[in-house]
C-alpha cells in the first residue's frame, strides 16, 4: 500500500521501528529527556496562556527542548516531501476522500473535531503514542499499558464503526 504522500512506498516496519527506538534512546542518553510529544500542546499554549496549569515548572522547563523537537517534526515532514517527489500543498486524504468527498472547509472542521479529542484526551491521559506507547511501554510502566490499551481500543471501535457501518 503506497503512502498518500506522492504515492511513495512505505519504509519497512522494522527499519521504521528501529529508527524510532534510536531517536528515543538518544534523547534520553544525550539529552536526559523522556520522549513525549503531546506535552508540546501545553508548551505551545503556555506561550500565550497564563493559567496556573500552563505556568508549571515541567512545562516551562520542558518546552526548552520540546519546542525545538516539534519544529524538527515539521521539518522532517517537509524534507520527506521535498526529497520524495517534491513538496506541494495538498488536501488529499485517501480513504476519507473516497468515503465522503469533503470540501476543504468541511475537512478542516472534521480534522478540528478529531484534533479536539486528541488535544483534550492526551493531556488528560498525560501522554500519547510516544510518551505512553513507546517510552512508557518500553519502561514497563503500568499506567502506560492502561493508556495504550484505552486509546488503541477506542480508536479501533471508532474506525470500525465509521468505516464498516456509517461510511460504507
Amino acid at each position, binding site marked *: 500500500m503506497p*503512502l498518500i504522500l506522492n504515492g511513495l512506498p512505505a519504509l519497512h516496519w522494522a527499519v521504521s521501528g528501529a529508527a524510532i527506538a534510536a531517536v528515543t534512546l538518544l534523547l534520553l542518553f544525550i539529552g536526559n529527556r523522556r520522549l513525549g510529544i503531546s506535552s508540546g500542546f501545553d508548551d505551545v499554549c503556555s506561550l500565550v496562556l497564563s493559567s496556573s496549569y500552563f505556568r508549571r515548572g515541567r512545562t516551562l522547563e520542558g518546552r526548552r527542548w520540546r519546542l525545538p523537537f516539534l519544529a524538527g517534526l515539521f521539518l522532517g515532514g517537509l524534507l520527506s516531501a521535498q526529497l520524495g517527489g517534491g513538496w506541494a500543498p495538498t488536501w488529499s486524504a485517501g480513504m476519507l476522500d473516497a468515503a465522503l468527498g469533503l470540501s476543504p472547509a468541511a475537512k478542516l472542521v472534521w*480534522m478540528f473535531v478529531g484534533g479536539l479529542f486528541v488535544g483534550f484526551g492526551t493531556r488528560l*491521559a498525560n501522554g500519547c503514542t510516544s510518551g505512553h506507547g513507546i517510552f512508557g511501554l518500553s519502561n514497563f510502566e503500568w499506567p502506560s499499558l492502561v493508556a495504550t490499551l484505552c486509546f488503541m481500543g477506542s480508536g479501533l471501535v471508532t474506525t470500525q464503526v465509521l468505516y464498516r457501518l456509517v461510511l460504507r
Partner: protein
Amino acid sequence: MPIFYIVAGTVFGFVLSRSGAADYDFIQGMFLFSNLQLYGIIGTAVVLTAPGLWWITRHGRSATGARIAFERKVLNRGTVIGGMLFGIGWSIAGMCPGPMLVNLGEGKLYALGALAGAFTGAALFGALYPRLQRPLGLPPLS
C-alpha cells in the same frame, strides 16, 4: 543544544512521514486490521527501546555525566478516560500528536484543522484542570 533537538525531531519526523505513521490510510488500516504496518513499527520500537532504556537507567548517567532522571507516568481516572478520548480523535483525524506536525510539513493542509483542534483541546483541559482534579484524581500541579 536546541540544534540537537531540532535534528532529532527532523529524523523522527522524516521516519514518521515515510513509515506510514503520519498517513491517514495507514492509521485506518491499523484500526481495521487491513494493514499491519503500524503494529510492526510500534512493536519493533518497543522491543528495541526496552533493553536500551534498561541499560541507560542502570548505567545511571547521560552522555554528559548528568544523573538520568525522568518523570514516571501515574495512574488515575484520567489515564482511562483521556486515553479513550484520544483514541477517538486519533481515528477521526488519522493523526496522533507528532504526525499532526509531520503532515503539515508534508503540505497536507487539513493538518491545520487538527492542530487548531489539539491546541484548543489542550487549552480547554488546562482551563478545566482545577475542576477536574478532584473527581478524576489528577495529581497536584508541579
